[in-house]
Each structure stands twice: as C-alpha cells, then as structure tokens.
C-alpha cells in the first residue's frame, strides 16, 4: 500500500490519526524498515503520540516531537531532528499531523522535502464524528487540508468507529460513507481499520485491504496494567 518513504496522516480533529499513525509506524518496523515517527500535532496537547516515546523506542521506532521537557506544553515548537529523518534516505518517515486544516498548515514548513521525495498523504476519516457523517463534508475538509498544507491527498483511511460500541454494523455503515467520500474525491480507500475481527464482514476480511489497530491512546482507566 506504500510507494514513497514519507507517509503523512492528516484528517479532522479526533478522527484517530494518532492511533493509525502509531500502528502504521509499528507495521513498517515489523517489515524490517528504519522508522521515524514525527508527532507534528501542535493543535492539542492531549493524547498525542509523544506520550508513547519510551514504549516506541523499545520497538525500535524513533519519535520526534518538540524539545525535551516541552512534551506536555501547548507550544507550537518543532524539533530540528525532524529534518534529520527527512534527509536520511534509508528512513521511512511517518507524520502524525494535528487535526483539521489548522493542524495541516504546519506541513508547509517541509514543502521542499515533499517535492523532492515521493510521499503519500492519507486522510483519516471517522464518519461517526459529528459533522462528518456527510460524504460532502469529508470531501470539503479534504480540499481545505490540501489548501492549508499545499499538498495533494492521495488516499483515504476508513477509521469508522464508535469506540467500545463498534461492531460489524457500525463498520459496514461507516465503510459506505467513507467509500462515498472517496468517490467524490476520486481517491482510493487505502485501508479500513479494525480493532477486533468480529467487526469485519466476510467480504472485508476476504477481499478488502484491512488494517488491525492496537489502541494506545487509552484513558487511564482502560490502560493495560502489569498484574504480576
């Protein structure tokens, strides 16, 4: 599903970009790639991938966000180490971008690198988020993200979910809405996420590109505990 060595996850606020980006970075790592994950979320200081820095390090993934000590600040500060990833030809670079066009604007900073390197810019969509149940709204947001980032979106990621209430019906209905948005934009649905195989229909499990998600951005009361 990937062509270039730069993959950028963008999308509406709260659509699940961080979960998808972290899982995708881990997926690339499992393929034996050198992976750099860039947390470019300067919109909202909560549930960002930088909270996983230590855990991702154990998995061999370098995470870059802001200057050390400022991880929990709401400052729009970027680390110069982002450039070292972009300049290293043997690195797969995954960008986890902040929500909405306002979050995508910061991508413009790296424009020369995106022109020189093949990239994929994927829009993560959850049509169960208010305002995005309408494919026309998803398409409209896509255009705004493109205008703000000065990049072209190359595909959609179907991250339809209702949290713990996600079942096969929820996924099936979401898939239709994301498909309709992709049709309007004349773009492919790159993959559909799932957290449990029971959420997939027979067709999805068999034919379509599906991508398993392990959730990391959990509230404290759902976090895994060491009970030993």
């Amino acid at each position, binding site marked *: 599903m990937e062509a270039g060595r730069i993959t950028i996850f963008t999308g509406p606020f709260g659509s699940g970009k961080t979960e998808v980006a972290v899982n995708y970075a881990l997926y690339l790592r499992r393929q034996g790639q050198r992976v750099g994950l860039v947390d470019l979320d300067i919109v909202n200081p*909560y549930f960002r991938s930088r909270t996983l820095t230590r855990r991702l390090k154990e998995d061999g993934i370098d995470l870059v966000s802001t200057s050390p000590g400022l991880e929990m600040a709401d400052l729009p500060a970027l680390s110069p180490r982002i450039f070292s990833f972009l300049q290293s030809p043997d690195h797969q670079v995954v960008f986890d971008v902040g929500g909405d066009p306002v979050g995508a604007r910061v991508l413009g900073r790296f424009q020369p690198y995106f022109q020189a390197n093949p990239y994929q810019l994927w829009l993560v969509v959850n049509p169960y988020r208010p305002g995005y*149940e309408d494919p026309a709204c998803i398409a409209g947001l896509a255009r705004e993200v493109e205008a703000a980032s000065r990049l072209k979106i190359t595909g959609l990621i179907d991250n339809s979910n209702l949290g713990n209430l996600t079942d096969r019906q929820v996924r099936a209905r979401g898939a239709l809405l994301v498909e309709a948005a992709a049709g309007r934009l004349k773009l492919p649905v790159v993959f559909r996420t799932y957290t449990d195989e029971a959420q997939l229909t027979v067709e999805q499990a068999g034919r379509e590109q599906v991508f398993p998600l392990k959730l990391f951005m959990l*509230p404290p*009361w759902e*976090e895994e*505990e060491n*009970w030993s």
Partner: protein
Amino acid sequence: MERVMMKGNEALAEGAIRAGCRYFFGYPITPQNEIPEYMARRMPEVGGVFLQAESEVSAINMVYGAGGAGARVLTSSSSPGISLKQEGISYLAGAQVPCVIVNVARGGPGLGGLNPSQADYFQATKGGGHGDYRLLVYAPGNAQEMVDLIGLAFDKAEAYRNPVMILTDAIMGQMMEPVVLPPLRTVAPDQPWATTGKRGRSKPNIINSLGLVGEDLERINRELQAKYARMAASEVRYEADGVEEADLVVVAYGTTSRVARSAIARLRQEKKKVGLLRPITLWPFPQQILAELATAGKRFLVVEMSAGQLVEDVILGVNDREKVAFFGKLNGTVPTVREVYDRIRSLLSEGGEG
C-alpha cells in the same frame, strides 16, 4: 437515536446548545479550548451568540448581563481562568442570576500545568468568591453525562435562579466516547424577574447584589440560605454501585471514579466485596447515604487527584475519621488502576476481609 463519537468538551458544548443555550462568552485556555472552538462554529448555525471576550473577568460579567435578561448563557474556562471569574460568580450568586459555568480543571496552584486535576473541589463547592453562597455543582462521569448534566444544569439554574457549575477535568474533557444527543430545544428567554422592560408592570425589575442597609443584607442572606436549603433537600445525586453488600466503599467522582471502577471490577472477579459511591452533585453533597453506610459498618476509601478535598466532605458525612482512608495524587498524574487496586487490597486485609 443516532450515536456519535464526541470528546467530553464537545459533548458539553453541543449539550448546552441542545438545552437551549444561545449565548456563550469565554476566553481561551487549555484544556477547554474545544468548547469555545465548537461554539464559534455552532452558535451562528442556531442563531446564537459566540463572543470571545478580552478576559475571563469580562466574560463572566457578560454572563451577568445575558443571564439578567433571562437568557440561557454559558461560560467555560479552566482552573486559573475560573479563579479570575470568582468575583463575577459571587455577584451572580448574590443577584440570583441563572447561568452555567464549566470548569475543565487542570493542575494548580498558580499557572500549574495542563494535566488533569481535582484540586478545584474546594473552590467549586465551598464558595471560591466572597460571601455566603452556594453553587449547584455537577461532576459528570462520562461523555453522555456531559450532555445530560449540562442540560439539567440549565433547567436547575433557572428553577433556582442560581449559577450552576460543571466541574470536570482535562482527561474527561479530552477523552472521546459515543453519545446520544437529545433533540434541539429552543427556550424563549421569558422570566418574570428578568430586566427586559416593565411591560405594563408598575415597578421595574432590578438585578442587583447590593444590600447597604444592614437589615436588607440580613434578609437577602436569609432568603439565599432558604434557597440553598431547598436545593440541598432536593438536588442530591449520586450513583451507588454494590455499596449495600460491600465491606469497603470507594468514594470518587469524574476521572478517579472511572479508575476506581476498573479496579473494583477486577476485585469483584476475586470475590472481594467492594462498592463505589460516585457523587454526581458535589454540592449538595450526598451526606445522607454516607451516614447510612457508615451506620451499617462500612469502611471508606476516597480516591481523588488532590491533596485531600473531597475527603473532608466524606468525613463529615461518615462522621468517623477512623473509617475513612484517603488516596490522593497531586495535580500531575492520574492514579493507575493498579495503584487503586493495591490500596483497596491492603485496606481489605487490614480489616481482616482480604
């Protein structure tokens, strides 16, 4: 009913609009920025007013104006911003102006940090501003309650002519959960006491908190206290889960109640008798049920993200310090499920139930 995924902050904002709120005045501060952001987009769609004031002090006084005219009005902020609003909140209480104030609390004191905190409990429940006054204070336990309780908050604010506060925190505001939204209500601002012109009455309505003559202030305060007594008698809300058969009752609200619930679920698998008492109103506080459980011989563990604030009300209700244990975290980290589990286990074994 259609379900949608909403952040706690968004659920509060949309819940307010569904409840007929058409005026929002605020000033940005993390971690509640989704509320003004949402209102800026949404209010024009429903013919409402979103206004970013030049300060929190200004915003709360705009609330005084709109509320005095009988409108359903909301302001939101986070801890340092709520401190700035305290003078205005005291005036709103004194002048008996209905309104809803949201505090998505972060760590303090001072500028503090952006992590979740429950250290604004005293400020919310004991009067953060001057004078003898009370706010009705709701503490939602999930995104659905954000929607439901803010709707109730507007109704109660009007019913009692009193400011109502929603006290929540950074994690509750930022986490995302499925919610069902109620239908959109439109409430005409039509209050007999509102300052909207005399309309044929001989005397003008006056919204004021001034009582220069001693006997006047005495009378005003007696009326306020009588109103607070009525609120205390009818507005207590709580959730009691397995408290009757429990050896130990955990008392927690908001974020810590969620952590406690996960720990309790695990303990119950191990056949331990542990209950959860979750105050939904922080004022009025569920003293009665605590007194009854104490009489029935229960012991208590209070879990909160502060140095110990809620625990004082629990001790008052239980009326026996020896029966109340405390586990607090200080404005930076949320207690983990494991930590709460371990604390409960050790309390049970001390009591011979482990």
